[in-house]
């Protein structure tokens, strides 16, 4: 496997392992640990195996196409720098797995834990091995998500939930910005391939969008690496199980930010913007993190702030822009990972064995766990930068770089002072950790009696500490070559000459080191008493709980503010919505007309017939009056609407469209009747307060009137002018020519409806069917308002009258008050049915057709219901409207399908004239069957609505009588 498929194995291993881990029994902790350990160990072996190919600037690549058209591919790429990180990720990962085996409680269902840990390992490997910018973004966000789940692993704890959410919010948001920045970067460079981008550094730095890209990329990197002012999520993430902290918050996840900075260092660094932003972030984080760390009472809190500070140090080094500083940064990444991981593990051991991490309670542990104490002390010394340990070497390099002039700004001038101060703080908090935990009097009231941890729980710490010492003493024999490979792969030809030796002679950096060590020890000496009893947090910062502030801001901005904005910008009321639609229609019309007003033809009122004009005036008055009276006088409004309908109907006749007129008339009748039946169930309007017209109401009405007038006149005017234009050749001409020749009907309207555009008709009736079904569904659940439960006023009046009169029983009048009309209505039924049949049959040649016939027959049924009541009708006729609808639909489908059987498209018609006895010569077209379907469906749909309304009274009556019975009992 000398090719890149090695990388594929490396990256797939953890993900496959994660899936397996998730599938295991939740409590199989040994199996889980073995599985995770072998995955990490396997990864480590693969990494080691790959080294020869990446030393001295070699690069391994492996490409799988993903979305080639967008330049996105799964490009895995390993160079010396990525190799170093792979080693850290898999190596420390292996140690963490071993450590977690002993750390996690036996009761803990660890399947999820190991699955997540392995997923994280994979994601982190993905970040460092990505050879494509977008793939990098993919793994980057994946680390945020998995770290969220890991921090919130003990999600029954409030602090875990809050810490997890905060980490996700900050790093996730940073990732979104990074994503955008990477897209821009790729777009400027012309490729998303990392190698291509790394070569395009000059183009990118000279591009006007450089600073935008920089800010976006930094937003991702600085949030991830917990740089000031985004640092606060890291201390809160300490709610995670300690193995997670040791892994994510020392060696891997937070390192992703500085990894990114180093990765793009050749492309983005060296400009004043870079130095300013990165430098300020790095130096302030370095100083503040170290300062805050001194005052933490929780060991993990101290380590978290220390981590922040050390990441600041790396960031600051990268900001300088000099190759030597970059070498130091890369060196310190590795060093920090080793000593900080071991310290987190040591802190976990202390927590595990004593039950607390509070340094105010801990004391004198050296006598109980001398071995662990020694290890922790060595690691802390490395953290503080004590000579002969790895931390010293990289810090020394930092000091010498801080002294160098890079850019002539104030930032550069203060850098050495900041460096020494932060160094002193680091010594102070390290000393404090050692002294207060391991020395002093015997501890009192600890939850557990402390003792040494199990052998293999301590092993990872031992190993890491040994590495710290080895690197610190003989750097050139240990890390030297690996560091060199990493540095070459980042800096390429710019790689400077540098020396890793422990002793450089007495120079300024050494003096700075000595000063910071002595200063730090002195600082601790002064503060030691206060620290032992102090509250948590740095002075001046105690009142400010970063987490609360964060949450409050979130709630204020995201929720309260959003709710206010939502109530301002949206409405739940119907009227404004309708007004908006109409108003915007006016605006849209005006917008579309823009620039074309000169094309409007001259107004021409010649030929306006006075009679038609008068008719329309009546119609308009009716519609306005209907709107006027709709609120208080529903019945009159309904009648007026009917008036408008009749005018429409007459206009159709006037314009020689008898078909439309017939249909319009029938539809008018049936809708008016149905609404009349429904009026009974609307809430009562009696006793409403009279309209009050204050100023606002007047304004609203005026505005609405304006909108209405604009919409109406605009539409009318447009229609009028459009009709003045010479008519374009239209499809209508074709209909006129071909209706009889090809459609077999002299009634063009009918031929259009059932043949030319039969497809429309077929689905218009589907609409009718659906509406009927929906109305039925709605009314089945409908229960009228309380004030409608009483019988109508007129009926009560009649009954009261009956009661007074001696010769009448109560109810006598009501029983037959419609006697004469109802007899007529009953006898009308056969006549109406015959008329419907007549309309149906003549449809293809003369006004009529299935729709008109159906409405007619439905009117017949309606009259029966009016005459006899629902019960009377349904005792005598089989009313199965849903079935009729179904029959109608299937008829119409069947007609269409018939054509397909003969190999023609759906709804292709066929016709022939046939002789039928008594009736005469009839066009027997296939469309007749189709029309029959329409007929059945229309009848069914209207009757279904009718039934739904009619059954209201039955239902209320039963309910009322039930209530009455209850009252009587």
């Amino acid at each position: 496997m000398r090719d890149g498929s090695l990388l594929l194995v490396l990256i797939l291993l953890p993900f496959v392992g994660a899936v397996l881990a998730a599938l295991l029994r939740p409590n199989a902790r040994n199996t889980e640990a073995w599985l995770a350990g072998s995955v990490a160990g396997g990864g480590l072996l693969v990494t080691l195996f790959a080294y020869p190919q990446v030393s001295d600037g070699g690069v391994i690549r492996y490409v799988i196409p993903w979305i080639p058209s967008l330049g996105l591919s799964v490009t895995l790429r390993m160079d010396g720098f990525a190799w170093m990180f792979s080693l850290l990720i898999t190596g420390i990962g292996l140690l963490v797995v071993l450590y977690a085996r002993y750390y996690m409680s036996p009761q803990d269902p660890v399947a999820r834990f190991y699955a997540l840990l392995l997923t994280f390992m994979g994601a982190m490997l993905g970040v460092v091995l990505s050879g494509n910018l977008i793939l990098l973004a993919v793994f980057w966000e994946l680390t945020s998500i998995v770290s969220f789940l890991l921090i919130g692993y003990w999600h029954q704890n409030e602090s875990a939930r809050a810490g997890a959410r905060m980490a996700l919010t900050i790093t996730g948001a940073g990732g979104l910005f990074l994503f955008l920045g990477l897209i821009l970067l790729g777009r400027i460079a012309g490729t998303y391939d990392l190698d291509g981008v790394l070569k395009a550094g000059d183009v990118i730095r000279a591009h006007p969008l450089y600073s935008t890209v920089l800010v976006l990329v930094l937003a991702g990197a600085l949030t991830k690496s917990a740089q000031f002012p985004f640092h606060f999520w890291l201390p809160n993430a300490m709610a995670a199980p300690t193995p997670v902290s040791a892994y994510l918050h020392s060696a891997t996840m937070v390192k992703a930010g500085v990894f990114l900075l180093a990765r793009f260092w050749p492309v983005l660094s060296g400009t004043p913007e870079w130095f300013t932003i990165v430098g300020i972030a790095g130096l302030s984080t370095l100083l503040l993190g170290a300062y805050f760390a001194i005052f933490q009472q929780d060991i993990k809190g101290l380590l978290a702030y220390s981590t922040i500070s050390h990441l600041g140090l790396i960031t600051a080094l990268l900001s300088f822009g000099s190759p030597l500083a970059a070498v130091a940064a890369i060196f310190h990444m590795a060093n920090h990972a080793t000593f900080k991981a071991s310290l987190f593990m040591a802190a976990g051991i202390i927590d595990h064995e004593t039950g607390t991490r509070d340094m105010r309670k801990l004391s004198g542990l050296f006598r109980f766990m001398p071995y662990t104490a020694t290890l922790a002390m060595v690691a802390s010394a490395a953290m503080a930068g004590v000579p002969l340990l790895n931390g010293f070497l990289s810090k020394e390099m930092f000091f010498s770089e801080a002294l160098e002039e890079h850019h002539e700004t104030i930032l550069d001038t203060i850098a050495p002072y900041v460096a020494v101060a932060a160094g002193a703080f680091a010594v102070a908090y390290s000393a404090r950790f050692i002294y207060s935990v391991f020395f002093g009097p015997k501890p009192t009231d600890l939850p557990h009696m402390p003792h040494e941890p199990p052998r293999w729980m301590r092993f990872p710490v031992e190993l890491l500490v040994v590495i710290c010492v080895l690197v610190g003493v003989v750097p050139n024999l240990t890390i030297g070559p690996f560091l060199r490979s990493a540095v070459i792969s980042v800096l390429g030809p710019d790689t400077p000459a540098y020396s890793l030796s422990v002793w450089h002679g007495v120079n300024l950096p050494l003096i700075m080191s000595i000063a910071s060590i002595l200063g730090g020890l002195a600082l601790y000496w002064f503060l030691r008493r206060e620290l032992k009893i102090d509250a948590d947090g740095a002075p001046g910062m105690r009142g400010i709980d970063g987490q609360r502030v964060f949450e409050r801001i979130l709630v204020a901005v995201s929720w309260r503010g959003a709710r206010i904005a939502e109530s301002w910008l949206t409405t739940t009321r119907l009227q404004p919505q309708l007004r908006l639609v109409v108003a915007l229609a006016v605006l849209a019309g005006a917008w579309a007309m823009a620039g074309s007003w000169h094309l409007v033809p001259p107004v021409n009122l010649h030929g306006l017939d006075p009679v038609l004009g008068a008719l329309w005036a009546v119609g308009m008055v009716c519609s306005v009056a209907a709107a006027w009276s709709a609120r208080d006088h529903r019945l009159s409004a309904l009648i007026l609407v009917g008036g408008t309908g009749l005018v429409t109907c007459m206009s159709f006749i006037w314009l020689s469209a008898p078909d439309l007129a017939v249909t319009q008339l029938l539809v008018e009748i049936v809708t008016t009747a149905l609404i009349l039946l429904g009026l009974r169930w609307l809430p009562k309007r009696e006793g409403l307060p009279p309209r009050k017209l204050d100023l606002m109401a007047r304004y609203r009405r005026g505005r609405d009137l304006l909108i209405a007038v604009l919409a109406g006149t605009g539409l009318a005017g447009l229609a009028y002018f459009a009709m003045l234009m010479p008519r374009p050749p239209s499809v209508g001409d074709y209909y006129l020519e071909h209706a009889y020749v090809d459609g077999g009907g002299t009634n063009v309207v009918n031929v259009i409806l059932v043949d030319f555009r039969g497809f429309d008709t077929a689905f218009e009736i589907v609409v009718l069917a659906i509406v009927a079904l929906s109305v039925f569904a709605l009314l089945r659940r409908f229960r009228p308002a309380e004030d409608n439960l009483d019988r109508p006023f007129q009926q009560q009046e009649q009954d009261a009258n009956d009661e007074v009169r001696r010769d009448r029983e109560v109810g006598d009048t009501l029983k037959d008050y419609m006697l004469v009309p109802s007899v007529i209505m009953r006898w009308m039924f056969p006549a109406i049915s015959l008329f419907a049949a007549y309309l149906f049959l003549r449809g293809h040649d003369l006004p009529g057709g299935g729709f008109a016939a159906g409405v007619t027959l439905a009117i017949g049924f309606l009259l029966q219901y009016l005459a006899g009541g629902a019960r009377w009708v349904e005792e005598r006729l089989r009313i199965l409207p849903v079935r009729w609808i179904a029959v109608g639909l299937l008829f119409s489908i069947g007609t269409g399908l018939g054509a397909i059987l003969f190999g023609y498209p759906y709804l292709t018609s066929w016709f022939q004239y046939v002789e039928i006895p008594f009736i005469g010569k009839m066009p027997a077209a296939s469309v007749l069957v189709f029309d029959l379907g329409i007929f059945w469906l229309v009848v069914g749909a209207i009757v279904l609505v009718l039934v739904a309304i009619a059954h209201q009274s039955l239902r209320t009556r039963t309910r009322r009588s039930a209530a009455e019975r209850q009252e009587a009992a």
Partner: protein
Amino acid sequence: MIPVHLVIAPILIPLATGAFMLFFEDREHRLKTILSLASVIGLVIVATLLVIRVNSGEGPAALVYLLGNWPVPVAIDLVGERLSTLMLLVTALLALPALLFATDRWQGAGPHFYSLFQFLLVGINGAFLTGDLFNLFVFFEVMLAASYGLLLHGGGLPRVRSGMHYVGVNLVASLVFLVGIAMVYAASGSLNMAEIALRAESMQGFDRPVLNVGIAMLGLAFLVKAGMWPLGNWLVPAYSAAAGPVAAIFVMLSKVGIYALLRLALLVPSDGIAFGARVMFIGGAITMVIAIIGVLAAQSMKRAGAYFILMSSGTLLATFGLSRPETTAGGLFYLVSSTLALGAFFFIVDVLDRERDGASDVIAVTAEAYGDREDVAEEEVGSLMPGGVAILAVGFGLLAMVLIGLPPLPGFLAKFAILTSAFGPITEANDPAIVRPAILAGLLVLSGFAGLLTLSRMGIRTFWQPVEPLSPRITIRETAPILFLLALLVILVIRAGPAMDLFRATAEDLHHQTRYLDAVFAAEPAPSARDGGR
């Protein structure tokens, strides 16, 4: 059935099934379930065949079906081309799980659920397929009529109230639609979209503004359906009141509006820039802002889901408003992924809502506002979720990732596809053309962040710290639809390359409308069709 007639099958299959089921009472639950599922599976198969057929490169780019066998500009035509067949497939793939989910308990909550569901599919499929403007209106009405019925399904005051508003606003929109059709017909003398496009090129005098007004009216009507601010106020109450499976299939409804807009806007002008592209972009951007606010302000998951629909509408409008083939392709990727994800999201919300009362959602926010750090001893032992909850939690997490746009799920890829093509190769400094992509990019990031905040809050409250212990009784018929959609999303990730090629080809077709016109005008009626009696 011979392949020619395959184009009409997506309309006829659900129509016949829906009509046939009317013969049976609602208590014949098993029969109706089988029939409905058979119909929807049939739709999936037909749509797949159509997509393969249209993209196979054999024969014409579009399958044109002339109804009634009349010649081209006269006949109502169905056009199965890349975009419409793609939409058919997405619809079918969403309808299948929605139906399966509904069979578990929602079907009994009101009469004729199964038929209405099939009729809704008739309307949606017809709207995608038709090449005739008035026929489009008819199918819109079929769709809306069925959706009125489905929205009311299950009853209850919120449904009736929001349903009433839904009906009101959409009826007015239909009226505007009709006015638009009348104007277009007046100006062009045709209802056939291809014919209109052809005639629009050589239109003189006052006909031109009349056509423009007509198309503006049509656009307005479509924007109402798509939910663009401020026309989309009805959407959130209606969708959040609808029953779970209904809300899931409604996700497709808003896409129909966008589809129609896209089709029409690109069909009319000839220079490749969509009609009213600027309006689409601005409206889409504002809609995104509103959706971001709404997502942040949402207390209940359902409401958040409804705002996510609005967000996807806004994103699509803004993306299509850029009017470039590459971004349109990215938009299509987004359309498919967000539709599938939102569908599954509504399933999960439906199961969860059954278990909790609304109070816990309110507590989630107030707890965040005032803190609820009870000083309970922190326990450092993990807890195990019951299997049902774990499925829901994982599903919720994955869908949240899609909706936020987190990698590696399709939401992320879609945003990438949109942004990388929106920016294009950036060579020129201070190019004014970068303003709109920059706005879009900003809004996409912001919408992702808003989603992250809201969904993490909801997820944590629901799964990590339920107010009452969560033990949903979730059945296989409810789990399977969620898993099915998740599987589709995963496939979309793995096969992102071929999928993107498909979307690209689709977008290219869309932006070169001559391909559509050529296909339509090349269609010939079946020979000697009129021999019957003439």
